[in-house]
């Protein structure tokens, strides 16, 4: 760990502050590293990630499976077991640093200040307890209220997320709910204490399209109501485009590109982002045109490729001589509010985007 992480420098410059005290942003992640020692080697799931998020805004984190999205979100909630995960860096939530905080302090924040909507609501809800019970439990652990009050609150929440006849469904078990209803219940549970930070991990992946849209609407409505900050984790760029203000593209545990939605979709600067866009199905595209999948498979997080982690799959790596295979690109601010980690010269990237990529989309 002697090597200095370039991301740190970027972050430092972005923050413009020599002292590393409490930041002004509602959520700020600084040089987050989450490593898992295994028998097969050290898995660097997140390896130096930094970003900020304000109240009322939504950040979309995109990337392939295994790029470290979910690990990051669990890291923010402090859900990694200290015994099998090495977490370093800083996570500031509304003025409180979480990485160094005691387990118990973080626990108190969980569910109340920050909450999470999980990907698979069936497996994420305890099969032996009623939906109502699970919401009541979440509510009562942070609010000193009687069971009946909590129960009323649970019914309320279920109603708010659009479950019909919540007074009856409250006593049903998760397996008695349909997929969409279950996801709504999950959201109700996450929102039961009005969290200021909401992390949604692929909240719609398991659902069919109509339900997907309803759920996204619901999240948006709720954000307006509570002015929460939302982190939306997904590999579905469509979802991100619809909901997010900013996008963070992750690759191999690091940030490849950080941009506003507009920039990311219209002026992306990282070959990996191009690949993601190219593989996104679009309704307005000609049927005959084929998707352009990214070649190869995601890298091993134990033996991350030297240089740019994306280099084995990158069509443009040879444009830099051997730089891409030897030197890790730093995350630099290419344009205001638009950061990218790639060795290609900015102009070259713009050129490739305009001439080669965009027309094919």
């Amino acid at each position, binding site marked *: 760990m002697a090597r200095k992480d370039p991301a740190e420098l970027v972050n430092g410059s972005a923050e413009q502050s020599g002292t590393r005290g409490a930041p002004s942003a509602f959520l700020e992640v600084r040089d987050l590293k989450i490593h898992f020692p295994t028998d097969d080697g050290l898995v660097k799931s997140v390896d130096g990630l930094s970003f900020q998020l304000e109240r009322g805004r939504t950040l979309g984190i995109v990337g392939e499976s295994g790029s470290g999205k979910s690990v990051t979100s669990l890291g923010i909630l402090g*859900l990694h077991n200290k015994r099998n995960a090495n977490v370093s860096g800083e996570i500031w939530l509304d003025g409180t640093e979480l990485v160094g905080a005691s387990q118990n302090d973080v626990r108190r924040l969980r*569910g109340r200040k920050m909450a999470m909507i999980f990907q*698979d609501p069936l*497996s994420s809800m305890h*099969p032996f307890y009623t939906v109502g019970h699970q919401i009541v439990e*979440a509510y009562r652990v942070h609010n000193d209220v009687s069971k009946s009050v909590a129960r009323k609150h649970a019914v309320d929440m279920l109603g708010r997320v659009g479950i019909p006849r919540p007074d009856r469904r409250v006593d049903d*078990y998760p397996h008695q709910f349909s997929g969409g209803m279950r996801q709504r219940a999950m959201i109700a549970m996450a929102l039961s204490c009005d969290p200021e930070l909401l992390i949604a991990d692929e909240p719609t992946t398991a659902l069919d399209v109509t339900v997907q849209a309803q759920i996204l609407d619901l999240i948006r409505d709720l954000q307006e109501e509570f002015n929460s900050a939302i982190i939306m984790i997904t590999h579905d760029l469509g979802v991100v485009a619809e909901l997010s203000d900013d996008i963070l593209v992750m690759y191999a545990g690091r940030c490849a590109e950080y941009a506003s939605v507009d920039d990311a979709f219209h002026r992306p600067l990282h070959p990996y982002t191009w690949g993601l866009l190219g593989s996104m199905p679009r309704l307005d595209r000609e049927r005959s045109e084929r998707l352009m999948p990214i070649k190869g498979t995601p890298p091993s997080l134990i033996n991350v490729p030297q240089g740019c982690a994306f280099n084995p799959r990158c069509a443009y790596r040879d444009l830099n001589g051997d730089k891409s295979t030897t030197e890790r690109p730093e995350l630099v601010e290419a344009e205001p509010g638009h950061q990218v980690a790639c060795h290609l010269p900015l102009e070259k990237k713009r050129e490739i985007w305009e001439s080669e990529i965009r027309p094919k989309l």
Partner: protein
Amino acid sequence: MVAFIVRRLLGAVGLLLIISAVTFAIFFLVPRAAGVTSDDIAGRFAGKQPDAATLAAIKDRFGFDDPVPVQYGKFLKAIVVGDTYDTGTEKIHCPAPCLGYSFRTNQSVTDQIVDRAPITFMIAIGAAVLWVIVGVSIGVLSALRRGTIFDRAAMGIALAGVSLPVFFTGLLSLAFVVHRWNLLPEVNYEGLSDNPFNLILPWICLAFLYAALYARLTRAGMLETMNEDYIRTARAKGLPEKTVVFKHGLRATLTPIMTVFGLDIGLLLGGAIITEKTFSIPGLGQLALDGVNQSDLPVVLGATMVAALFIVLANLVVDILYGVVDPRVRHS
């Protein structure tokens, strides 16, 4: 729920019927195939050097020459409605469930089983209490402290434990704890009137084996459960770790262990044969073993049936409990 229980109950009865038929067939047909005649069987009942007339009388009294299905029918009938035997001077009614009369002791098999059952129960239940408490706690602790010295030591001992048969640990403790060092008196337990702590040695030996097994099971189950998404959810809700572990984790872990426990306790209640033999405790297992050594068919058959009954009953109870604990089972 009622329909669920009724369904399971019917299934259990069906299972018992099949088992009784198979057992009966094996104990009556295999020896016949091996050349044992009804005279031989009557001879077992008749004592020393019986003459032909005696054998004929005995065969007649017990119907040994009837076709096997008829004998099986009688056997079932006796279980359901009882049976009547001619003692020479009077008729003895053997009330249901009548499992017939022992060839050797001329006692009702049912009486013998009723006599021995409490002894086996004491062994099984005492040991079970011990192994569930010890095994499950160690398993949970190990899972929670995965990778620590405690976990490694506990799992090392548990692995050794599952490799230690009772007939080894039992004999070893008899040889040393009882005979060499005189730390405990001879294991002697004949019925409920005796001090149950006379069974401490069999309990420990039996429980050691099972506790090791359960510790491993619990740990594996716990590790799997604690990796479940709903545990992550529970933590994400900000529940205290204690609640997460015990209310959410342990409950889900214990359900499959309950199934294993049902099978184990059912098997033991029907006769802890090896433990009873090792410590020479006169329980159901010894009864069955003596029956085998004495070729006392009614006893062997009765003991097998009772043993099967306990297994089926234990499984039934577990099934029903499963329905109580796991709403998914109840609703399916």
